């Protein structure tokens, strides 16, 4: 089963507001197979969350997915004979989408206190999902929920399942949300900054847990974060976003060792590290772009050091540099100046 479970082609999501059109996502393409973890990295407002919400069909008015976008999801949910086919999620009705969302695409959000309902016990919330999507009896669903809690590392799941969310700590709550996300054995798990609200030691626990569960459940994972360190830890493939568009996509070693896009490169050189002494940080000058009615040029242009005359006139298309390495830039360059600063990353990427 090597065919990608998800193929996104030129995804665009716009928001129509009285002042004009906000191009929150403007050209994102990637493939995802069920054994891969795709890391999506970008700053605030880069459109990383909106892009993944589009994949999950969670864009409500005034936002819309531009009809030319393709979000092809491989599933047998809608076929009569049970064979697998690609369904374009971009054109799916909101009501029909409930058969995909939660069942085939699981979700984990940033703040577990906001994604769990404080008025219901953990059992209620877990059983609801399982019964709705799998049509099993409540007792059976409860057993399954207990098994899941055990798997995500909650001690005494039998007693604790009847507790309310506030009775759990932050890390435990996030474990519960992960359990709910995985409860229907989805083909894709979308995690939107799941460890941002947690302390580093707890974050390490959750990251290990997610890596293990992804392997066990054989589901593809899309991991959204602003933290490049976390990305390097968990992702197989990395997509870098800026100003609503995808700047670069490649496997994790290539991104960190041979970044071709000037933004990726600048981003890597401005992270302070605790394991290596850095004499000087190189901040990216200027401010992130405003997404309202942006001109049809590269959004990074005002802050870019490699800008040329051509950049001011044309929209750069995503071009393939090598297999699995796509860059959106007119002047792609291999930058051997890697993140370590002191010693340049010389060796070739790859596992």
């Amino acid at each position, binding site marked *: 089963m090597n065919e990608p479970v998800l193929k996104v082609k030129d995804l665009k999501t716009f928001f129509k507001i009285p002042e004009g059109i906000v191009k929150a996502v403007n050209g994102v393409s990637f493939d995802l197979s069920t054994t891969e973890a795709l890391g999506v990295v970008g*700053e*605030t407002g880069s459109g990383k969350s909106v892009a993944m919400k589009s994949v999950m069909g969670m864009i409500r008015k005034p936002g819309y997915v531009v009809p030319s976008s393709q979000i092809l999801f491989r599933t047998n949910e809608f076929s009569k004979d049970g064979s697998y086919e690609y369904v374009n999620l971009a054109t799916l009705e909101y009501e029909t989408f409930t058969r995909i969302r939660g069942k085939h695409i699981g979700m984990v959000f940033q703040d577990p206190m906001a994604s769990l309902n404080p008025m219901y016990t953990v059992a209620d919330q877990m059983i609801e999902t399982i019964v709705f999507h799998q049509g099993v009896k409540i007792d059976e669903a409860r057993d399954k929920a207990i098994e899941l809690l055990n798997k995500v590392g909650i001690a005494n799941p039998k007693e604790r399942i009847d507790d309310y969310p506030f009775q759990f*700590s932050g*890390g435990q709550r996030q474990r519960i949300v992960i359990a709910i996300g995985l409860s229907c054995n989805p083909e894709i798990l979308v995690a939107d900054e799941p460890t941002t609200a947690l*302390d*580093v*030691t*707890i*974050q*390490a*626990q959750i*990251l*290990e847990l997610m890596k293990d569960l992804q392997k066990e459940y054989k589901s593809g994972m899309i991991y959204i974060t*602003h*933290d*490049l*360190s*976390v*990305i*390097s*830890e968990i992702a197989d493939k990395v997509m870098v976003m800026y100003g609503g568009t995808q700047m670069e996509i490649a496997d*994790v*070693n290539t991104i*960190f060792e041979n970044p071709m896009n000037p933004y990726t490169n*600048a*981003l*890597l050189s*401005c*992270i*302070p*590290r*605790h*394991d290596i*002494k*850095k004499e000087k*940080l*190189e*901040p*990216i*000058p200027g*401010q*992130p772009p405003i997404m309202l009615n942006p001109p049809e040029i590269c959004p990074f242009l005002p802050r870019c050091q490699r800008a040329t005359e051509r950049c001011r006139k044309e929209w750069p298309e995503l071009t393939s540099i090598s297999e699995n390495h796509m860059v959106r830039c007119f002047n792609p360059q291999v930058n051997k100046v890697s*993140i*370590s600063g002191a010693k340049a990353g010389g060796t070739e990427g790859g596992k």
Partner: protein
Amino acid sequence: MLLRVDNLKKYFPLKHGFIVEKTVGYLKAVDGVSFSLDRNQTFGLVGESGCGKTTIGKTILRIYDPSAGRVFLNDEDTSFYFMPKAQAVKFLKNEYVARAKANLETYKSVENALDNVQDYEKKYFKFFYEKGENAFYDHMLSGIREKRMSFRRAVQIVFQDPTSSLNPRMTVGQMLSEPLMFHNVVRNRQEASDLVQEILHKVGLKGYHADRYPHQFSGGQRQRVAVARAIILKPQLIILDEPTSALDVSVQAQIIQLLKDLQKEMNAGFLFISHNLGVVRYISDKVGIMYLGRMVEQAASDDIFDRTMHPYSEALLNSAPVPDPKKKRDRKQFIIKGQVPSPINRPQGCFFNPRCKYVMPECKSEYPGFYDIGMQHNVACYKYKEKKV
């Protein structure tokens, strides 16, 4: 020494009961922390949420009064500055008078007693021995208003979230000139506005930004305004409480660079509180790692990150991911199980012993003291008992 924190403690009473409240226990947010900081130096405080690092900052700034322990600014004890008079007298009695009397009894002569106190507190003891108890209180509490004013001028803070620390109803100009007027730095509005312009340029903003409201700025610009407000009185000590946590990495780097440049220019001391280890290593000269209200390890910045000794520091540093896929090691061995215990009900002995993999019998009975392993690298762990210098 610009700042000296000596055995600082901050306990929050836990009240129970209706109408008649009873104190049933204490939350020991900060429980005996000592460190010092010179001008043009940065001390980084690291720890997970709930370890008391922010409480230390707030206690130094005197948003809270310390429960015990002292805070020296330029070798002047400032701990009692903002206490009501009766409380201040009680504090002085505990910290100085009682000790001075006990010392005199043990060492018999005034000279010997004076030799056995720290250099920075000698002048207080001397005054007490010479003039007596009541004169000592009067001396310490005289001119307290001026002392308060100069303390407020000398110590400033930058908070984590500029959206909530800047008043949405004031323009940047108003915000920045208010402290100037209050402390009588300027004589009229024109002078204030000139100074505001100068400071805005210094933090990388434009002069016309003075007429804008906080909501008209981006997150990074707002934090620049907060920095401007902190430096406008030319303070000696700035407490930076997670100043970059709410910012994106590219903007974070700008603010850190700005802070570093300003420090050189102003010759100020920074207390940098953060949970981001990378930022702390980059900006700090000295670093202290905290766990449950106590410092577990303290050393020079590079030393503590390259030669991590305490089991908790080891776990913390190895939990933090590194932006380098080649260093994606098997971290399972370092991951600490469980969570931070409640600060209300801390474990017996070393607070880290229930989660520590090197735990020894003595760890469970008594909290370890600091062991110096060389190069002023102090570790509170029994593992390093033999290496004591």
